[in-house]
């Protein structure tokens, strides 16, 4: 059966309605069953907590945002560069790809404490962990994209005898762009996970730190306040990347 297609505005309204409905249901259940805030605070309690110290929460949110974006940006630059080398040189591929696959199968969360030993407790280790978690998604998709130039287009390039750099910049890279951008959509979410993991391990700032320290004092509303901010940030980051994707590759229709 065909699904009805909704206009953009209605689609957005429906999504928003389901979130509001979920929060309302939560609120009702907590009140009706008399659940204590230390177990599960009602959304109204969480919003009050956020509203009371919004300036402080914003500060923590922005700290996490910058480390996330730092790791994300680094993962794009390094990921695409590595993918170019992997696609450009067979020898490099055979030598390095197994290493990359092996590194990727190590749970990054497990090595997070190492970065604290190496880089201290500032922003650097968080950026590094966010980068490390996100970069593999970029590498895999960029390699796939750079290899996806259609045979006809490869032949065209050979017949026209363009310089390798010309062919790379004008044909191969734009061909790979849809794949690379699909990779960035995964990478942005992973970067956020990485930044939080970094803050869990050692930090005095950021939403991850807020969650961990509030958990220590059983301040559940504060934990939820931080989680709310994280959810909001995650949605906004993903939407921003998806928006960039639509602008940069209008010829490509992602499903």
């Amino acid at each position, binding site marked *: 059966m065909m699904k009805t297609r909704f206009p953009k505005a209605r689609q957005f309204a429906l999504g928003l309605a389901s979130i509001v409905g979920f929060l309302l249901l939560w609120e009702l259940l907590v009140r009706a069953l008399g659940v204590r805030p230390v177990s599960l605070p009602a959304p109204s309690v969480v919003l009050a907590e956020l509203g009371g110290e919004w300036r402080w929460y914003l500060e923590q949110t922005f700290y996490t945002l910058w480390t996330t974006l730092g790791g994300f940006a680094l993962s794009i630059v390094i990921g695409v560069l590595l993918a170019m080398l992997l696609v450009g040189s067979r020898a490099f591929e055979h030598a390095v790809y197994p290493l990359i696959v092996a590194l990727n199968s190590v749970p990054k969360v497990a090595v997070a404490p190492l970065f604290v030993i190496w880089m201290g407790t500032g922003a650097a280790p968080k950026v590094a962990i966010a980068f490390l978690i996100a970069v593999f998604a970029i590498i895999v998709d960029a390699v796939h994209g750079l290899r996806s130039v*259609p045979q*006809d287009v490869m032949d*065209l390039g*050979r*017949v*026209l005898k363009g310089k390798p750099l010309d062919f790379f910049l*004008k044909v191969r890279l734009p061909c790979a762009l849809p794949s690379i951008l699909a990779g960035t959509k995964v990478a942005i979410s992973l970067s956020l996970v990485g930044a939080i993991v970094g803050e869990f391990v050692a930090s005095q700032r950021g939403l991850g730190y807020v969650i961990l320290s509030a958990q220590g004092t059983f301040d559940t509303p504060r934990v939820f306040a931080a989680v709310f901010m994280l959810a909001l940030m995650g949605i906004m980051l993903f939407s921003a990347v998806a928006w960039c994707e639509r602008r940069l590759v209008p*010829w490509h229709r992602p499903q």
Partner: protein
Amino acid sequence: MSAAAIAADQVRKVYPGGQGLTALDGVSLDIRPGEFVSILGPSGCGKSTFLRCIAGLEDISGGTLGVDGRPVDGPPDHLGMVFQRDALLEWRTIEQNILLPIEFAGKSTAPYRAAVGQLLRLAGLSEFAGRYPRELSGGMRQRAAICRALIDQPGLLLMDEPFGALDALTRDQMNVELQRIWMETHNTVVFVTHGIAEAVFLADRVAVFSPRPGRIVEVLDIDLPRPRRLAVRETQAFGAYTGRIRALFRDMGLIDEGAADAAAAPATHERSAVA
């Protein structure tokens, strides 16, 4: 004689591997400058391989192959090529796509703007210079690809089943337009197709390929006045050419009408049984 634009003598192409697949087995064909030659054959007969050898995209395994008197060693200069799928770059406008060969040749594109306009007019795409490929239909895209192949004034135009992916009506239209473009530019054209009518309609000569390993079984001179209109296909002269080619295909076992006869036979049987 080295006046030929393309001189193929006993060209062989064997793909390495277990059994060593033979794609071309002694193809000999001379093509004159300014001539339009169709290469006609069944799917997988090596006709595209032959074209790719001329384009320098594949090495030959034996024989000699020359373009403009020089043995082919990599893509020759002044070559335009049109592929089965248009191979347009989606992120470039039609004009930018057509200018790609100029950019790749390291030349300034500014002096070629006028030539782009002229080609677009010739192809009936004048309003689409600033549009993107996704805004064009399949036939329009392929015409744009032909413009791209012609922009640097190639002496030689190689076309690899360029209209194979189009519907029958669009294909007819493209045949008419290609003929018109060719009559104005007069490049040497090698046109690969598996359509008998298309091959005859367009060409000065039709080289008929056998199934793999590819070999030329016959070269037909098509002596029909130009410009040819689509209605030429209903004439007796045209029918004689296509009939001759169909007979060749039947001799090679590519057309088997016995199956149709066999299918008809039991039907009459049944009917008589009922009666």
